[in-house]
């Protein structure tokens, strides 16, 4: 029977000695801190371009393209509707102005006719008075 068998704790003690923490290699901490600094810079850069990197995914690209196309179609339809409404409104406005001009011209015509009549009529003569006898 070995000593270890006689005293099981001896093995555990031996294990504790064998598995004592060892010093990290020289410069380990500096290397870690240097890499951490690089990690910070890389993280900031990644954050800036992450939204662009999203488009490296084919599905995202196609989805974005589809979304843009849909927006363009909807926007185009909306724009055409607006253009049509504007054209119809302009046409209605022109009709309105035409109607008002016609009405105005006829009133002008009436005025001219009235003036013609008035100017063509002779001036009314004052009534004749019977001569007064001198006293």
């Amino acid at each position, binding site marked *: 029977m070995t000593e270890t068998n006689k005293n099981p704790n001896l093995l555990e003690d031996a294990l504790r000695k064998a598995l004592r923490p060892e010093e990290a290699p020289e410069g380990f901490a500096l290397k870690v801190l240097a890499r951490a600094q690089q990690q910070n810079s890389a993280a900031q850069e990644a954050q800036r371009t992450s939204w662009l990197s999203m488009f490296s995914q084919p599905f995202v690209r196609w989805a974005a393209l589809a979304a843009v196309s849909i927006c363009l179609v909807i926007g185009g339809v909306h724009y055409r509707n607006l253009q049509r409404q*504007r054209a119809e*409104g*302009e*046409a*209605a*406005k022109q*009709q*309105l*102005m*035409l*109607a*008002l*001009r*016609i*009405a*105005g*011209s*006829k*009133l*002008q*015509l*009436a*005025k*001219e*006719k*009235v003036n*013609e*009549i*008035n100017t063509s*009529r002779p001036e*009314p003569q004052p009534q004749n008075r019977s001569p007064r006898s001198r006293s």
Partner: protein
Amino acid sequence: MSTITRKLVPLILLLAFPAILRAQELKLPPGVEKLASKAKETVEVNMDGPMLHWASKFLSAEDPEERKAAKLVANLKGIYVRSYEFSDEGAYTAADVAAVRAQFRSPEWSRVVGVRSERDGDNVDIFFKLENEKMAGIVIISAEAKELTFVNIVGPLEVEQLADLGGEFGIPKLKTKPQSSKPMAKADKGEQK
């Protein structure tokens, strides 16, 4: 004779709705409606209240003419125009015009202008509709040798507003106050014909 120069206007399509006909006070007899087929040019405008309101949105505030038009149209309920231009004289009959004039013999209508010119045959009648002593509408019937025009403006039109249009569209500034000295044309004193 002054005639309206029609530079435009082939047949202008309506922006009409069926409800327009109810608002319109001027009813054209079938004989007059058929004149469109004889006319070289026809202008037909039917604009009721909503349509006027919508069209007025497109009037520019920067244009003086359109600005005044917007002001006038703001309270109107309708503008209806029929205008026929013919190549030759005699395309319509006096009876056609008389039938239209007869519609405004009712008490609510007053003929304020009635001009008959034997020299050139131009006849112009202007009727005002009064409600509560305020202008509620105007009808203009212009019968010229080669042109027949009917205008009906419906709405609480102030005489002053109509006067504002004078000079903008060629509408004469009507004198709202009685003038002294000069006698009125005989047609003004009531319907003659």
